[in-house]
């Protein structure tokens, strides 16, 4: 446990040195936030329905969403895949602890740092210049924190799985592109999933972990669906955390076996 905390702290510190990259990313999030916000607001003007979001909620949804993708690191550098390509992954696998825990701890540290920077910047910008929805209930903040934590875990597991494919495929660009596309729309980044036809939306929400990564935490914050809606989402998220992490462990186990049997 202490090791996990130490790793978290090192992850936090490591990412705090990437000042240029963090600033650039936060600026990017802000610009995309404006783009998406204007688009959704324009949609709301003549809309026949906005599926339960009023204008301030839509706006806040966008801004929090932009902040969230920084915290969960929706599209991150393929560090592990690079390690597999160069063979350096072996040193990680030779350690007595399953590398998933070490990577996860580091990632949580990074997420912690991102909360202070990449979450705060777009949200602050949105709050100042755009209609904003402030949570009305005190428990929303706590639930949001849990939701964000779960989202980070799910996203980490999926990214790990994408990287692990490097053990089988020499070039993971195909899978990375697939993830980019799926996560772009499926996570609720471009529009709330409920804009889609009923069956499609339900399939995404209950059948895939994608909306759990961005949409659900954002929904929790803007109190969409009230307290029952919030609790339902967080519960679903924690279910997906378990499933995704289990999948990551399973695939890594097979990858390790492949490495040991076949050689690098």
């Amino acid at each position, binding site marked *: 446990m202490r090791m996990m905390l130490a790793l978290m702290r090192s992850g936090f510190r490591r990412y705090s040195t990437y000042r*240029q990259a963090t600033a650039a990313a936060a600026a990017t999030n802000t610009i995309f936030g404006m783009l998406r916000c204007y688009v959704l607001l324009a949609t709301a003007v003549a809309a026949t329905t906005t*599926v339960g979001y009023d204008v301030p909620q839509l706006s806040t949804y966008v801004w929090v969403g932009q902040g969230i993708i920084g915290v969960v690191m929706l599209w991150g550098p393929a560090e592990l895949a690079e390690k597999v390509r160069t063979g350096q992954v072996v040193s990680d696998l030779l350690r007595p602890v399953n590398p998933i825990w070490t990577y996860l701890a580091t990632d949580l540290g990074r997420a912690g740092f991102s909360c202070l920077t990449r979450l705060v910047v777009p949200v602050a910008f949105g709050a100042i210049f755009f209609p904003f929805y402030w949570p009305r209930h005190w428990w929303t903040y706590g639930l949001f924190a849990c939701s964000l934590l779960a989202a980070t875990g799910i996203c980490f597991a999926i990214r790990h799985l994408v990287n692990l494919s490097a053990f089988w495929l020499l070039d993971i660009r195909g899978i990375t592109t697939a993830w980019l596309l799926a996560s772009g729309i499926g996570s609720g980044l471009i529009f709330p999933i409920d804009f889609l036809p009923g069956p499609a939306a339900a399939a995404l929400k209950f059948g895939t972990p994608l909306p759990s990564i961005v949409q659900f935490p954002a929904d929790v914050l803007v109190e969409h669906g009230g307290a029952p809606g919030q609790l339902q989402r967080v519960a679903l998220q924690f279910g997906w955390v378990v499933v995704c992490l289990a999948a990551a462990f399973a695939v890594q186990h097979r990858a390790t076996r492949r490495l040991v049997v076949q050689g690098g």
Partner: protein
Amino acid sequence: MVSRLRAYRALLVAQIRGQAQYRASFVMEMVGQSTYTFMDFAAVLVLFRVTPAMGGFGLWQVLLISGLAICGFSAADLAVGNVEQLRQYVRTGLLDAMLIRPRRVLPQLLAIDFQLRRVGRVVFAVVLVAVACAHVGVDWTWWRVLLVVGTPIAAAVFYAGIFVLTASVAFWWIDSGEFANSFTYGGREFATYPITIYGSVFRRVFAFGIGFAFISYYPALAIMDTPDPLGMPAWFGALGPAAAAVMTAIAALVWRTGLRHYEGTGS
């Protein structure tokens, strides 16, 4: 000149052959590319499920605007998209390997990873523009035909300039690469919708300052013979080529300055 073309052709052919080697990934990427193409305008469709109009424009009008923008962006992505990799090459020192060859750096960079499969998106966008024009009911004059053919070309050149300009940042600051996305992918998103939906400051910067309005919105208005709700004159629709020329000039200047800076500081 001929030898130069032959050199690049050889490089391109070798690249395409090299890519086909990674079969599984290649197939997945082809599927991904077609999905990308679909997603380009799927978002617009989904949004129009919940609303009949955006910024005062109907579905097919918006799709015409989108089509022009996506066509230009995809063509630019096809031609110069690989310049984004400059960051990687600077970081790994591979750029030095290019400097010891008797060729200019930018063409080498582009030829090193030419993705022919991106052609699909361009073709799709062209079809989209044609269908949108049909639905909107265009009163075809020679001028409008010229516009509908010339605008995607101007848009492609414009976006190509933006790609090179934003990639050049890597010569100075390697880690700020992500910010470039605001103008390349962000620029594409911006031009996909009528500029009437944007707030005034944002619009002034992106649509007029940088020029994204001139490569999709205003030409579309001219084609549809619709007056601009913002009150700009109709000849704004003809400014596409001018915007492209200016952007290209700026991009060339910044690229050259950046390369010189890189040669001054090394890697």
